[in-house]
């Protein structure tokens, strides 16, 4: 046993440890590193876009390259930055919140991560092999089926890989939450972040397969000559739009629900108050998740679906505002009457309220179909979803980083730097995107490589571009903060925020088995209850005993490499028969790993009672 107690000095040992790890906390960190990398990449693409649009008829980059930039910015940010960063947080925190020692399928968890990472690499390899995808992150057919070169092929296979990984992550969390809660942790005692993880996982489970099918159809059309979207042979490109948005709209909630959880934790902790209306919050989350599947066609009001369809989807969409409003007001009432501490984590959370409310307001506005005939595919919509995704999701991820950094990295982030990063980013964000609402209404469609002179769009675009500069500065300061604390930061104390939930009951050294003894949960906010009753720490639910742990494995990594190689085979078999070697070789490796996994018994190992007691010294 004890992959951990082995000497961890050499770089190779650390590398091997991470390549083979099945520990949810390490996988969580890997997700965060991977997500952060792609976030910076997507951010760079955003800056290039804003430089191109700083003045009318700019020629900073060519039309073709611009289209690659917008496609890669959108795809990267949604699939390879926001989603994995959230999956990372869920991995790192959720099992601790419910008092579990790991997730239900540690092996699958590792596989999910590697699939995400290699999916992202796959997508970005396209920059080096003759051009990135250029059909927009929505890849509407027939633009995507007729796009020359291999860019869109990389899009298809990169998303297919990472999509499979995300789906596995979702199932894993679901089973973990249902089966592995600590004694006494009933559903209605789960922290909101765990609840939102749960609902998010349901959304992933039912939404991603639609994307999988869509991508398969696109792949078949591009690489195997089928005719799903080919009008000449009776195909219908609207099918792609339906499949994409049946996935795409729930995906928005996959992103926003977890941060709703994050904010619920942060508001409660820093107001020193129980979350107001916990039950209402849980049911609002479930309702949002449910309604999220009923509204996809509001992305398609201008497709020509007819007034009946448009009206139904308009009303269904507006209905989502109700549970979202419930959440906003419950957060406000959590603050009300509290004893509020404002630090970096709280600043992001407080800034989220107005920013996200604006995003929600414009959400109701775009839901009104006739008004959407004007908003659709303009900068108004660009502004709307950036208010939701930056003002909601990115603020939430940054808040969560400040809040949970002590658990994840055993350091407390620097407050001063945190505030600098916040104010730069916050001001830059509103500067960049608020004005875009008006640009849209003044007649600027989205995905425009250039806007023409004398159309009244110059000043708005300039302001927007300057705002992007401030946002960049904010990100750089945050990054500096993280690196600074890595090397210079003091070790975090136990429970630095005087928090309420179970993850703060874990020892500050965060042992790899999480809990020596599973804790007994006696209500909502279990740690707070113990503190109020003067115990200060959790009561164990079991005596010290052997702990069953899973073995690490290199198979998830190898399996992913197999699929990665096979993807190149799929892409290039259309032009060169040698590619079949890659296709079959890669698939052989992947399926071989699967077979080994199935045939080789892996019973895990036990940490004995004696070892546990020794380690405590």
């Amino acid at each position, binding site marked *: 046993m004890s992959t951990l107690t082995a000497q961890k000095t050499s770089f190779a040992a650390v590398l091997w440890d991470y390549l083979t790890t099945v520990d949810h906390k390490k996988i969580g960190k890997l997700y965060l590193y991977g997500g952060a990398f792609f976030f910076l990449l997507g951010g760079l693409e955003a800056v290039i876009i804003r430089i191109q649009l700083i003045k009318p008829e700019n020629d900073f980059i060519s039309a073709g390259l611009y289209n690659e930039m917008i496609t890669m910015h959108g795809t990267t940010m949604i699939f390879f930055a926001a989603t994995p960063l959230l999956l990372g947080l869920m991995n790192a925190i959720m099992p601790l919140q419910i008092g579990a020692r790991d997730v*239900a399928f540690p092996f699958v968890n590792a596989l999910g991560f590697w699939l995400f990472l290699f999916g992202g690499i796959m997508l970005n390899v396209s920059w080096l092999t003759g051009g990135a995808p250029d059909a927009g992150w929505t890849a509407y057919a027939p633009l995507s089926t007729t796009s020359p070169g291999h860019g869109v092929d990389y899009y298809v296979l990169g998303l297919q890989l990472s999509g499979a990984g995300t789906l596995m992550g979702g199932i894993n969390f679901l089973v973990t939450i249902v*089966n592995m809660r600590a004694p006494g942790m009933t559903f209605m005692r789960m922290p909101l972040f765990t609840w939102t993880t749960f609902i998010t996982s349901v959304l992933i489970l039912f939404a991603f397969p639609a994307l999988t099918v869509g991508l398969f159809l696109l792949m078949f059309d591009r690489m195997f*000559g089928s005719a799903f979207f080919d009008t*000449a042979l009776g*195909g219908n490109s609207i*099918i792609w739009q339906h499949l994409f948005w049946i996935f795409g709209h729930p995906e928005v909630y996959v992103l926003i629900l977890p941060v709703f959880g994050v904010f619920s934790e942060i508001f409660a902790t820093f107001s020193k108050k129980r979350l107001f209306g916990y039950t209402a919050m849980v049911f609002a989350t479930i309702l949002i998740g449910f309604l999220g599947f009923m509204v996809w066609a509001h992305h398609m009001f201008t497709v020509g679906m007819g007034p009946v369809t448009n009206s139904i989807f308009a009303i269904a969409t507006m209905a989502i505002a109700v549970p979202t409003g419930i959440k906003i007001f419950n957060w406000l009432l959590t603050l009300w009457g509290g004893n509020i501490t404002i630090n970096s984590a709280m600043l992001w959370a407080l800034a989220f309220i107005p920013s996200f409310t604006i995003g929600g307001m414009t959400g109701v506005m775009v839901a009104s179909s006739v008004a959407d005939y004007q908003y659709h595919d303009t900068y108004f919509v660009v502004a709307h979803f950036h208010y939701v995704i930056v003002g909601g999701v990115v603020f939430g991820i940054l808040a969560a980083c400040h809040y949970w950094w002590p658990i994840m990295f055993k350091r407390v982030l620097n407050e001063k730097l945190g505030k600098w990063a916040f104010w730069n980013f916050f001001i830059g964000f509103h500067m960049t995107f608020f004005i875009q609402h008006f640009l849209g209404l003044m007649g600027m469609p989205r995905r425009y490589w250039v806007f023409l002179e004398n159309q009244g769009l110059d000043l708005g675009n300039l302001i927007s571009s300057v705002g992007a500069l401030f946002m960049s500065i904010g990100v750089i300061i945050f990054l500096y903060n993280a690196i600074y604390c890595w090397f210079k930061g003091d070790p975090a104390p136990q429970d630095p925020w005087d928090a309420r939930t179970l993850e703060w009951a874990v020892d500050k050294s965060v042992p790899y088995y999480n809990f020596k003894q599973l804790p007994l949960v006696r209500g909502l906010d279990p740690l707070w209850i113990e503190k109020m009753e003067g115990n200060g720490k959790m009561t164990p639910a079991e005596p010290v005993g052997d702990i069953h742990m899973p073995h690490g494995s290199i198979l998830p990594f190898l399996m992913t490499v197999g699929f990665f190689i096979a993807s190149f085979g799929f892409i290039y078999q259309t032009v060169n028969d040698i590619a079949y070697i890659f296709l079959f070789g890669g698939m052989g490796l992947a399926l071989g790993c699967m077979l080994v996994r199935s045939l080789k*018994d892996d019973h895990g190992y036990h940490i004995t009672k004696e070892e546990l007691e020794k380690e405590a010294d």
Partner: protein
Amino acid sequence: MSHDHSLNPEVMPQHPEKATLEGKNKFLGLWFFLGGETVLFASLFGTYLALKNSTAGGPTSQDLFGLELVFLMTMLLLTSSLTSVYAMYHMKNNDFKKMQLWLGITGLLGIAFLGCEIYEFYHYIHEFGFTFRSSAFGSAFYALVGFHGGHVLFGLCWLSAIMIRNAKRGLNLYNAPKFNTFSLYWHFIDVVWVFIFTVVYLMGKVA
């Protein structure tokens, strides 16, 4: 090792497939997985329904389908679902040999089904020139039925892997969940086929 013993108890519990946490997790995980698979097939069905009349001048569903063969295939797959139920019944009675026998029959029926399907496709391609590329209807048909066939093939590989691997050592709490999840998966494949039979073949022939 102590836990090895715990996976091979003197007396097998009533539900060996759910006696361990790993077993419970596998069971629930597979159910969730099948939930996702439902959406996958629903998307394919939706695509098929949207494109089933888009024959682009090529053969239509009425020209192509022969219900005799498809009915035989349906019977084969339904029966295989039933035999896998017998297998699980014997697993719960801790009768490993009978379980293997019934699983074997399940597998043979699955192979027969797949054989019929391959013959069917061969027939369409050579008699009618009806391929994946000939029309949007062709693409949608082969995608939907082919995805199902792929699932059957995967199920057969899975079945033979666990049957051969465990042939010598009998049933224990470690492999019981594997047999159980396979059986669940197999039922799901069967249910999907019932829908394909109805939506694709019956409705295609009648409409």
